[in-house]
C-alpha cells in the first residue's frame, strides 16, 4: 500500500470533476432504487435525495447528498448544499425506515449546509439539530459513508450512525480549510496550510476514533474505477449490515449513544 495522501492531496482528488458521485454509485450498489420526494412541509430539496432500494436482496432506505457530475446537475443540486427541507426529507425517510424496520444507509458528500437567507428563514440550525436528535434514537441500524466532502454540521446531520466509514480520500472537517484559513490568517488562499492543521483525512479521523472504517479507493483515486470503488463500498455495507443485524434495538441504541458519548479530549 502506498503512503496515504495528505489532506491537500485528498482535497484535489475529491474536487476532481471525474470523481464518482452517488449518481454513479447508487445503480452500481443497489437494485431497484425508488426515489421518494419531499419533506411534506415545504418542498423537495435536490441536494439530498433518498428512497428505498434493495441491497443484496433486502430492503434498505438510502439517503444521500448529491454532487452533480456537471454544472447543470450541480446547479440543480445546489452543489450538494442542502436547505432545511433537505434535512427534513432525510428525517422523514429515516422515520419511515424505522417504521418498516429497514436499515438506513446515508452517503455524505457536501461542502456544508447552505448558508443563505431562505435557509435561515426556514431554520437551518433547527433542521440540523432535529436531525441529530432523530438519528441518535432511531430504532434501526444506520450506516454512513462519506464519499468526498464531509463538511461540518451539514455532513454530521446524516452521520449520527452506528458505523461511519470514509472513502480513503474523503475528508471530514468542522470547518472548510478555506474558511479556517480566512479566520486564522485572514487569507483564504492559505487553505492548503489550514487543511493540514485541521487533520481532516480518513486516517486522522480513524486515529481520533471518529470513524470505524476506511474504504479503499482504486490506485490513484475513485475516479479511476467507480466499479471497483462501489464494490468496496458494497463489501463494507454487506459486512456491517450483518454485524449490526445481530444487535437488539436496545444494544444498538446504547452503543450508538456511547460511541458519541465518549468523544472528547479533556482532563479533570
Amino acid at each position, binding site marked *: 500500500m502506498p503512503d496515504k495522501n495528505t489532506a491537500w492531496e485528498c482535497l484535489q482528488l475529491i474536487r476532481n470533476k471525474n470523481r464518482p458521485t452517488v449518481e454513479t454509485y447508487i445503480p452500481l450498489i443497489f437494485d431497484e432504487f425508488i426515489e421518494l420526494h419531499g419533506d411534506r412541509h415545504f418542498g423537495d430539496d435536490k441536494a439530498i435525495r433518498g428512497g428505498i432500494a434493495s441491497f443484496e436482496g433486502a430492503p434498505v432506505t438510502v439517503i444521500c447528498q448529491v454532487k452533480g457530475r456537471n454544472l447543470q446537475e450541480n446547479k440543480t443540486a445546489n452543489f450538494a448544499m442542502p436547505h432545511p427541507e433537505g434535512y427534513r426529507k432525510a428525517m422523514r425517510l429515516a422515520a419511515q425506515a424505522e417504521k418498516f424496520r429497514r436499515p438506513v444507509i446515508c452517503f455524505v458528500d457536501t461542502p456544508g*449546509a447552505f*448558508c*443563505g*437567507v431562505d*435557509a*435561515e*428563514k*426556514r*431554520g*437551518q*440550525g*433547527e433542521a*440540523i*439539530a*432535529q436531525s*441529530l*436528535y432523530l438519528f*441518535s*434514537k432511531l430504532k434501526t441500524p444506520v450506516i454512513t459513508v462519506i464519499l468526498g466532502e464531509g463538511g*461540518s*454540521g451539514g455532513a*454530521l446531520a446524516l*452521520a*449520527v450512525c452506528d458505523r461511519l466509514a470514509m472513502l480513503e480520500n474523503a475528508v*471530514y*472537517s*468542522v*470547518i472548510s480549510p478555506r474558511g*479556517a484559513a480566512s*479566520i*486564522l*490568517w485572514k487569507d483564504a488562499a492559505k487553505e492548503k496550510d489550514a487543511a493540514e*492543521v*485541521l*487533520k*481532516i483525512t480518513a486516517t*486522522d*479521523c480513524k486515529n*481520533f476514533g*471518529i470513524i470505524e472504517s476506511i474504504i479503499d479507493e482504486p490506485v490513484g483515486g475513485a475516479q479511476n474505477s467507480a466499479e471497483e470503488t462501489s464494490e468496496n463500498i458494497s463489501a463494507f455495507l454487506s459486512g456491517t449490515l450483518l454485524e449490526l443485524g445481530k444487535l437488539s434495538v436496545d444494544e444498538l441504541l446504547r452503543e*450508538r*449513544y456511547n460511541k*458519541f*458519548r465518549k*468523544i*472528547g*479530549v*479533556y*482532563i*479533570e
Partner: protein
Amino acid sequence: MALENLFSLVKERWKSPAGTVTTEPPVENEKPVDKPKPSPTFKCPRCMQVTPAEVYADNLKVCPACNYHGRMSAKERLNIFVDGGTFSEFDKDMRSLNPIDFPGYDEKMGALREKTGLVDAIITGTASIHSIPFVIGIMDSNFMMASMGSVVGEKITRAFEYAETHKLPLVMFTASGGARMQEGIISLMQMAKTSAAAARLSEAGGLFISVLTDPTTGGVEASFASLGDIIIAEPKVLIGFAGRRVIEGTIKQHLPEDFQSAEFQLEHGFVDMITERKALRRTIRHILRLHGFGGDKIA
C-alpha cells in the same frame, strides 16, 4: 509561524494589567476612583447609542435606548438569575487538551483563563430559583466566544444526564460562535453528543428550557440549543446558523439589521417567546411550576 506570533502577542496583552479574576462582583461595580479617567461607556452594537457603563450595568446590561440585551459573563448571569448561595458547580476543573495540536491553542486558553477566571466557556451545576431546584448551564462568550469543544460538550452532556438521573428540570443559557475550530473534528462531534443527551432527557420525560442569549449561532444553534421543550430568547440578540458575512458574501447584498435577531426567529417560528432579562426569573419559575416543579400550587 505567523499564527504563534499573533497568539503570543495577544497573550502578552492579556497578561499585563488585568490579573486573575477570582470573585464574582458584577464587573461594573461601583468603586472609589482615585485618578480622573474618562468614565467607561457601552456602545450598543445594535443602535450605536453610547451609554455610561454604570447605567448600562444597573440596567442589567440592557441597552436603555433600544432594549438590546447585551452579553453577560456566566457569573453575572448566575448572580441575577438563581437564588443567592444555591449554586453548586459541576466539573469545575475540567479543562481541554489540544487534541489536534492546533498551533497556539494552549497559549490562547491559558491567557483566557487568566483573563476571565473561567476554565472554559461554560459553567454548569445545580441551583434553585424561588426555591425550586434545577440544573443550570451558562455559556460565557468571554471565553473564545463560547465555542463548543470537548469541555463545553462534555459539561453540557453531563448536565443533561444529571437532570435525567435526578429528575430535575434543566435550564441552559446558550451563547456561542459555534463549534471550536481549534479542536477540529472532535468539536463537531460535540454537536452529536449534546443532541443525543438532549434526546435521552426528552425520552425520559425531562424538561429542558433553552434560553438563547447573544449570540447563539453555528454548531450550538444547530444542536442542543434548538432542542429545548421551550425555547426563550432575549430581545434583540443574534440567533442563527450561518454567519451574516458568509451569507452577504454569497448573495452580494447587505442584509437587513434584524436578520437573525430574536424577533426574526420568533416571526419564523423558531422560538417560543422573547422574554426580557428582568422577567426571566418570573417566567421560568412559572414554567417550572406548570411542569410540576416547586409544589402543587401553580401561581
